[in-house]
């Protein structure tokens, strides 16, 4: 008998005599209602608050044209850059290219974002090195792809999963040295999420119509 069979047999013997417990259903993220007179923040606003609270930066642009202008301005202080495989040509910085482990700036396209947790949903098809090795990471995401809850975002990606999804919710940080927070320990120490408002949903990075 294999280890697999022996383990499963012991599991079955152990749980066979025990009452089973039902799955309680979806995670609803139960929260107290907001103070009187205040509305629940919209997903984009919730994302901004949490991403900034976690040490990230957030920029909002009206459309792809503005995104291009924003990037030109932002990238001007960097020497070299790398861009993810799914970043459209227009959103690649006009800087000398460098491999991800040498580039000063990395630009990626997030598949989605999450209001509830302030997370960017990073797809392995965009390239993991460009998401992880650069000191400064710029991530574009369409506002139409900002989900209210993590549950809904995972439900959405479930239908089309790559080898890896990364949820990035702020810069790389650690408090392992004397409980003092430092940024940029392994991954990017500076991360900027750029929310693009005007683009049509379902087609990230496409030019405005």
């Amino acid at each position, binding site marked *: 008998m294999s280890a697999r069979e022996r383990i499963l047999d012991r599991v079955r013997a152990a749980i066979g005599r025990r009452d089973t417990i039902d799955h309680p259903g979806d995670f609803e*993220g139960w929260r107290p209602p907001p103070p009187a007179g205040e509305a629940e923040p919209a997903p984009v606003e919730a994302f901004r608050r949490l991403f900034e609270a976690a040490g990230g930066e957030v920029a909002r642009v009206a459309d792809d044209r503005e995104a291009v202008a924003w990037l030109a301005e932002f990238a001007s202080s960097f020497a070299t850059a790398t861009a993810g495989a799914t970043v459209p040509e227009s959103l690649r910085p006009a800087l000398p290219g460098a491999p991800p482990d040498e580039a000063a700036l990395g630009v990626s396209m997030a598949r989605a974002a999450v209001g509830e947790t302030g997370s960017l949903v990073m797809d392995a098809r965009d390239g993991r090195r460009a998401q992880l090795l650069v000191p400064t990471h710029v991530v574009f995401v369409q506002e139409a792809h900002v989900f209210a809850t993590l549950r809904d975002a995972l439900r959405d990606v479930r239908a089309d*999963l790559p080898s890896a999804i*990364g949820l990035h919710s702020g810069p*790389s940080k650690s408090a392992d040295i004397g409980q003092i927070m430092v940024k940029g320990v392994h*991954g990017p120490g500076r991360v900027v999420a750029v929310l693009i408002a005007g683009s049509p949903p379902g087609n990230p990075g496409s030019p405005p119509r």
Partner: protein
Amino acid sequence: MTAPTRPNDYRAASVATLRDHPGVRDSVGSATRTFDAHRRQAFSQIEPEAWRDWARDVKSHALTHLDRYLEEAEKRLTANGARVHWAESADEALAVLTEIVGRRSVRTAVKGKSMLTEELHVNPHLERLGVHVRETDLGEYIIQLLGEPPSHIVGPAIHKSIDDCRRLFHRELGTAPDAEPDALAAAAREALRAEFLAADLGISGGNFLAADTGTVALIENEGNIRLSTSLPRVHVAFVGIEKVVPRLEDVSGFLQITARAATGQPIGNFVSLLQGPRRGGEVDGPEEVHVVLVDNGRTELLADDAAWEALRCVRCGACLNICPVYRQTGGHAYGWTYSGPIGAIIAPALLGLEEAMPLPYASSLCGACADVCPVRIPIPELLVHWREKAVEAGLAPLTETAALKAFTLAAEHPELYRTGSALLRWTPWKLGGRALPVLGGWMQEREPPEPSARAFRDAWKDGLV
């Protein structure tokens, strides 16, 4: 400081820690109070009781259907192109590494923080195989350089002060003796970056395993786990069989409640959701992914009609942070991988009751751990459960056994009880009390109350009460 290697040494090890390393209590106390304050703040923003009910029920559901979900996870992972291994013991889990190291000519490995790989002693095994293995979590890196085991599930180096780190990094990485944490972290980043880029093998644990998609989920803040599981050609994830949950959607709840309970964050700054090796059309990622499903005593725990609930544990460390006993010494005194209240209730099943003694007694049963546990493990009840088992097995401390026997005898014989209670009332506690076992320790720092002049039973007889 060398940590003991078995729980049996707990008493001597905790005395030695407090006597010889008073700074440990300061560092651990400060870190655990900070963790706990963050947890309280994070829980105040949600309805924690509803979250905890949900988390308890999903875990209990998964555990009472564990065979089904393990088989489903195996099927999905295999379809995703990952190789699934089943390991009954640490030796079987390590054999998976031996095979990979030989076949892929592995010379160097990078590791993300994982308690299970500590439990399995992965690092010494790899070193025996001639592999240079590097811990890449900053806290784990610090204690690896010092040759120490982790002292906390979430913050492995919380027993080290900033000055301890300064001295270490000055010696190992040539940083200035008074370097600030930013400079220390930058030096570590540079040293570790080179190791990431060169490593043949990446090793991780797994916080959760979603059965329906075959997804290994990992939580962190530094990005080192993402790097360890993305850069090397081969990735091996060691996952305890109890980590499986039914659906990827369930992971959405666990990522949040675990982060809130552990560090007070809405979610770890980096989460990896790993389905398998790099696919066609992807520009990078490992060519080979192995998932090792590890038993190593977990089915023993599952078979215990009370203690099986401990398998719900998500390793957030909240019970360590709140524990007045853990706070005195940190984790090393406990003598094995899992310290604090959770360690004390899983040790008897994972190590054997005799080997785990006296950990079920390393608690005042104050109940704070049960109040904070995000999956509602009845920790104090399980501590008592193992104490009962220890009494049955004749493993209970002699003083406790003798005291209980004496009380039983007295309680069954009214005359003896009366004489005994009179004797106790006239005992010169303040003079001789400190020499007594158990009570003596209590009296080191406290004034015993003055016994009343009359016994309750005499007052009762006289109609005074």
